[in-house]
């Protein structure tokens, strides 16, 4: 008897909490198909007009492209800098290496708003104009600690002998890194890359404060919010959601699925 009560209580809780988690997303997607000007009940009928409006919106499409550029560019740079630093700190004895590790991780502990403000103040003082480049600089700052930490953590000592063997066979450092270390660490390098693409793609406050005319997608969506509730915002939001879930599924199957089998 007690078991039945606790079981049904568990089920009731699951339904409640999953309902809470999915309610806003379900509403978002449902009313992106609204045949009318307001994305709230009653649901007037099915229409794809707002998706057409999204694809016809030049500013939105430009922002999409900008986000893609900034996310991939800043993530590649963050991974490269993070990998080189991790290689040096894991394979060589450098003075003050604990301090260096601390410095590289430090931006992780400061809120994005403060990082953005500091950069904005310095850029203003040096009279450097804001652009997608400055957004990219900010995104490398927030993603470098992440990439460094992930890659550094995976640089185990068991790889050292393979690298030594490569060196004995005449490979120089760059060759060892590019042909031996990087391929061995590819899963964690890719994990670091995709994680920082995700963060950069969705980052708002740095992109908002450090951009001027060319903006990224979250900033463009933000300016759409000023017009209040609008099914077009639902449509772009649903699109972003569906694309992220699709990418996630592909990654899950391609990257992590393979690892689990072996």
């Amino acid at each position, binding site marked *: 008897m007690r078991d039945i009560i606790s079981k049904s209580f568990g089920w009731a809780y699951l339904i409640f909490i999953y309902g*809470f988690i999915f309610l806003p997303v379900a*509403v978002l997607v449902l009313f992106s198909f609204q045949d009318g000007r*307001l994305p709230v009940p009653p649901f007037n009928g099915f229409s794809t007009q707002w998706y057409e409006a999204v694809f016809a919106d030049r500013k939105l499409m430009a922002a999409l492209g900008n986000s893609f550029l900034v996310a991939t560019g800043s993530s590649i740079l963050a991974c490269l800098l993070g990998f*080189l630093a991790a290689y040096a700190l894991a394979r060589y004895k*450098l003075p003050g290496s604990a301090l260096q590790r601390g410095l*590289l991780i430090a931006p992780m502990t400061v809120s994005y*708003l403060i990082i953005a403000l500091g950069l904005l103040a310095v850029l203003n003082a040096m009279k450097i104009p804001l652009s997608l480049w400055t957004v990219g600089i900010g995104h490398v700052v927030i993603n470098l600690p992440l990439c460094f930490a992930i890659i550094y953590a995976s640089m185990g000592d068991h790889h050292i002998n393979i690298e030594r063997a490569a060196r004995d066979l005449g490979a120089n450092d760059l060759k060892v890194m590019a042909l031996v270390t990087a391929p061995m660490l590819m899963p964690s390098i890719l994990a670091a890359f995709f994680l920082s693409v995700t963060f950069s793609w969705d980052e708002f406050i740095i992109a908002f404060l450090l951009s001027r005319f060319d903006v990224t*997608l979250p900033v463009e969506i933000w300016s759409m919010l000023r017009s209040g509730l609008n099914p077009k915002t639902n449509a772009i939001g649903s699109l972003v959601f569906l694309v992220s879930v699709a990418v996630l599924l592909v990654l899950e199957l391609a990257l992590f699925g393979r690892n689990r089998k072996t």
Partner: protein
Amino acid sequence: MTTTTLEDRERRKAWGFVAPALLWTLAFFVVPFVYMAALSLWSRQGRDIVHVWNLDNYLRFFSESALLRGLTNSLEITITVTILSVLLAYPLAWIIAERVPKRLQRMALILAILPFWTSYVVRSYSWLLVLSKGGVINQALMGIGLIAEPLEIASNRTATVIGFVHFFVMLLTLTIYSNLIQLSPNYRRAAADLGANAFQTFWHVILPLTLPGIMTGAFLTFVLCIGDYITPQILGGNNELVLPQIIMLQIGRRADFPMAAALSIILMLTVTAAYVLCARWLRIERA
């Protein structure tokens, strides 16, 4: 002799590899941060910044109630959100770890964090669709005749808290779940052997063992929540501003960078204080 030069050469090479990352962090993180700390000790006059060292911005913060209110609003909202999120996430993580069959657990977790993958801005906006006057909840309640007039649930503190809790329940479920599945079932068996019932086992054994995980997740929630501008700006209305909103007001409308810098430092000190307060429970894992 040759060994030292070899060592020197090796060391120089290593510096070459680590230098780009260090220089990047120095130039675009440390320098801006130090500059901002200095800025907070200067003041604004008209459009210019006066480079005279003083504590005026900090003194003004503590004497002007509108500014101080920002900090207390932030703290109240953040603490409420942190506690509610833990209370909601723990049972979910527990049910997934204990009651859901092993092969379905991964699926259940992925489902529990799926809305995580909408854009952060859009996620707050979608709560507006649910909570606003013509929104789903009000329409539903009026439809079944429970209320005659729409409730004011959007554009206030309740809406901000709901929006935040929604996000952090997902985050905390992940951290608490990963903590729960690491516990050896032997603990529970031992407790049962010693005569503890289910509740006693949970209260005296499971909960204390998962406390470090809970505190780490709660601290993360605190940090991310108190520094966020988007959720309160979209869902919170204009009555009870939080610290990040006030910081944005300083640089937006008033172009008062020194004051914004001072408020940022205060925000950072608050986070540091929270860290010191719960440091003894925090267990930041090292790989």
